[in-house]
Every structure is written in structure tokens, then in C-alpha cells.
């Protein structure tokens, strides 16, 4: 397995402590406790509708945008509370970047897409912004392809390039964690492969958490895997969380085994 680097002694980057999520009266996620290692890729897998994305969006509090959402329990980023009274959401989201399912570049130039984050955090200096743009595009291996067309509309490049641009845009605010919500599901196999290579590269410096319904992808890139399912009442929960190599070779839970051997989902 490509992603099975040593991670025994890795320090914990994000930790959830029996966290619960409610949409109004609907209990969506129940009592999830995990420790997510730093500088590694953690994959959240499970059948559709089990709450993978909701779980991922707990880390950067994106669920807050939905009216009627309530969270119980807590999550910690570097031992600081994400949901505590003094938590600063804006600062949190600077540290935890996100890449979405579909490439969602803003309808502006490639350059404007790259610097929109830094600009909103008060960086005005032109040469500094140019430097950020170049660094991030280089990180996602797009600099050579796009350096001569930075002023062109971002919507004019290919979907695969757009998704990599979205990753670069997230990197531009200097996050420590990157959440990727099925970020390859709208892409062709070649683009998917490029993004996966990129994930492995980025995992050297960043903590990456991905949601994927593609188990091969989880096996190819992730160090840790979390398998989620919903119970009879429609409440999502964590079934098994372990090193990816262990989970796929020796699942402990019958439900995990059924899922990864393709018996359902």
C-alpha cells in the first residue's frame, strides 16, 4: 500500500471527543471519538448517507452554516477546543482548509482565485501575493502549465486543473490541515491520479483528511481509515478506525468486512 508510511509515533493533530451532531431533531452523528495523526492521510469511508461529509465538516465547522445544527462534545485541534466558547471560527478555518467535491473556482482570474484567501486576511503587498500565488501553484504542480495565463478566467482551464487550483487556493492561506470531501469524484481517472499523487506529496507537510467512496483510493493513499455507517435509526457512527493496512487486510468488525469486500454499499 502506497500510503502506509510509518505513523506509530506520530503526534495527534485533531482529536474528537464523543462528538455528536444534530440537524434540528435529527441525530446525525453519534459519539465519535478519533485521534487523527499529523502529517498523514486519514480516509473516512462508508456507504452513502452515513454522515462522512458531515463528520468531515465538523473539523472546520462548516456545518455551522446550516440553520438548526447543534454539536455536542468537542473536537480539538492541537489540543485547542474547536467548539469551545473562545474558539475563533475564522482562525480555525485558516488552519483547516477545505477542498470540495466539485471543482468550484470563483468566476474570476486564476490569479484572483489564488490570492482571495490571503487578501481577505489582510495581505496587500503585491510582491508577497505574487509569491504566494507562485508557491501554491508550484505545490500543486500547475505553475509551469498556468504561469503564462494567470489573468485568464479560472473557468477556462480543465476540470482536473481547476480542482488542483482549488487545492492551491486552499494552500494559499497556509493551513495545517486539509479536508478533502470526495475531491476526485467529479474527475476523470488521469486527473484523479494526479490529485492522489499530490495528496501523498502534501501529506509530508500537512495533515490530510479525505472523504471517499472509492475504497481503492483509500487503500492507495491513506495511512489511517475510519469506517462509518448508519444504524437502524439513521444515526451515523464510527464502526472501525485503524491503520488502513490493518483495516483492509484484517477488519475487526463484521460490518467493515462486509463493506470492504463489496457485500453492500
Amino acid at each position, binding site marked *: 500500500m502506497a500510503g502506509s508510511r510509518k505513523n506509530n509515533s506520530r503526534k495527534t493533530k485533531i482529536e474528537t471527543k464523543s462528538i455528536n451532531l444534530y440537524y434540528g431533531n435529527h441525530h446525525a452523528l453519534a459519539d465519535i471519538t478519533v485521534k487523527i495523526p499529523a502529517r498523514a492521510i486519514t480516509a473516512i469511508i462508508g456507504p452513502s448517507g452515513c454522515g462522512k461529509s458531515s463528520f468531515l465538516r465538523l473539523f472546520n465547522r462548516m456545518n455551522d452554516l446550516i440553520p438548526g445544527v447543534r454539536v455536542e462534545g468537542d473536537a480539538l485541534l492541537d489540543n485547542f477546543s474547536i467548539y469551545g466558547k473562545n474558539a475563533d471560527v475564522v482562525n480555525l478555518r485558516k488552519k483547516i482548509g*477545505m477542498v*470540495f467535491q466539485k471543482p*468550484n473556482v470563483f*468566476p474570476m482570474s486564476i490569479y484572483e482565485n489564488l490570492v482571495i484567501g490571503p487578501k481577505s486576511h489582510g495581505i496587500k503587498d503585491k510582491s508577497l501575493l505574487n509569491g504566494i500565488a507562485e508557491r501554491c501553484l508550484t505545490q500543486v504542480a500547475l505553475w509551469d502549465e498556468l504561469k503564462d495565463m494567470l489573468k485568464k478566467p479560472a473557468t477556462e482551464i480543465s476540470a482536473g486543473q481547476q480542482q488542483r487550483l482549488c487545492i492551491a487556493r486552499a494552500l494559499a492561506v497556509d493551513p495545517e490541515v486539509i479536508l478533502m470531501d470526495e475531491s476526485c469524484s467529479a474527475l476523470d481517472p488521469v486527473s484523479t491520479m494526479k490529485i492522489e499523487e499530490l495528496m501523498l506529496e502534501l501529506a509530508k507537510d500537512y495533515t490530510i483528511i479525505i472523504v471517499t467512496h472509492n475504497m481503492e483510493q483509500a487503500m492507495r493513499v491513506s495511512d489511517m481509515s475510519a469506517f462509518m455507517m448508519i444504524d437502524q435509526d439513521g444515526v451515523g457512527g464510527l464502526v472501525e478506525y485503524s491503520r488502513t493496512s490493518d483495516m483492509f487486510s484484517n477488519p475487526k468488525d463484521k460490518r467493515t468486512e462486509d463493506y470492504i469486500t463489496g457485500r453492500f454499499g
Partner: protein
Amino acid sequence: MIKLNPHTAEKLAKGVIWTVALMVIAVLIFIIVFILYRGLSVINWEFLTRIPRRSGREGGILTPIIGTLSVTLLAILIAMPFGIGTAFYLAEYTKDGILTRIIRFCTESLAGIPSIIYGLFGFIFFVQILDLKWSILSGGLTLAIMVLPTLIRTSEEAIRAVPKTYREVSFSLGGTKWQTIRKAVVPSAIRGIVNGLILSVGRCVAETAAVILTAGVSLSMPKSVLDSSRTMAVHFYQLVIEGISMTNAYGTAAVLIILVFFINVVANMLINRFVAKGR
């Protein structure tokens, strides 16, 4: 009912839709061509730069042009912050609740009121109670209230049409609510908002009933917004209804059409030039 086979139905539908669309376009073109045909010959430099004499039988339409522009500009300047602000409040800052339902109900009701009622309100409230007299200010305030519903609704629709993902991305990059609105929502909604503004300008320029009761019908050159002035639409109305001069009425109408056309083109050019870069 006769059952058509899908192929015939397809042809029939296409035929009907094309016919209807062409008829509408034909009527519009006919009106514009007819008015320009009757009016363009009247328009010359004197017509645009002279004050009307003998109630508009002679002279130009300089004061109605100035009246139209000042009343409209004032109305839009007053309505814009309130209309767009309310739209952002409804679309971004509040959940659906009793308050938003009341606001929506009111704007929708206001949108359906005939303009002469606004005129009457403006006459009683601005002209008489606030003692602003027949003036450009009274007219502007009245028109501002009149176009508010249009402005609120078109702006709100434009804001709501901005994909949710833009907001998500902005928030995920650590943007605040205001930054998200400014950087992610406004650039995408601006075209729709400006369209709403243009629509409002059109309504102001075309309005007669509401301004005749509030801005009055004076033909002399206004010195401030507290002076009365008649708009082109009112001038046109007076020229026709009092049988003063059909020729000059068509001339006025032609100028009116050209003005609206001009405002549209300029507004679109400005959007393309300044806000729609990279779009």
C-alpha cells in the same frame, strides 16, 4: 382529444413557440420604429438644448430632460441603499421567519399598487405634510418608494442565485461573513443587481402619474431639488392630452426611448469593464 404522434407534437410546439416569440418581437420593433420614425425628424440640437416655449408648442425639451434625469437620479440614489441593503438582509443575514415574511408580504403588496396611489401618497405626505411642495425632491422620494419592491426582489433573486459553493469556499478559506459577501457573493450577483437598477431607472423614467402629483409640471429651469420640474413622460402626456403638439410629443417619446436604450448600454459597458473581469 386527438392524440398527436410525438413527431407532429414536436413540430407543432416548435411552430407555436416560434410564432409567439416572433409576434412579440415584431410588436416591440414596430412600436420602436414607429415612434422613432415619427420622432427622429423632430430631434435636433435646438430641440435638445432649448427650454420649451408656449407650453411646448415651440422650443425644445431641455427642462423636461433635466427634470427626468434629476428625479430619476435622486430616486435611484435614495432607493439603492435601502433596496439592496434589504435584499442582502433577507438573503444573507436572516433565516426565514415572521419578520422576513412580513417584509416579503409588504414588498409584494407594494409592487402591485398602481403608481397613482404612490403619487397620491407622495402628494399628501411629501408635498403637503412635509411641505416639500411640488419639487424634484418630492418626486424623487415618491419614485424611490415606488421602485423599492422591484429593487428588493430583483436584488434578492440575484443574491440567492449565487451558488452556495462560493459562500462555502469563502468561509472555508477563513473569510468572515462580510468578506464572503463582498468577495464571493457580490461579484456574482452584481449583474442581476444592476439589472434591477436598470429596471428601476426605466420605471422612473417612464412614470407619469406619480411624478405629475409630486414633481409638478413646471417648464422653467429648476435651480435646486426643491423646485418643481416636469419629466419627459409628463411633458409627453401634457402635449398629447391638451392637444398642444403631436409632433413635439413624438420627438419627446423618441428622446425617451433613446435615453433608456443609452442607459442600458452604458450600464452594461460599465459592468463588463469594471466588475465582470474574468467572468
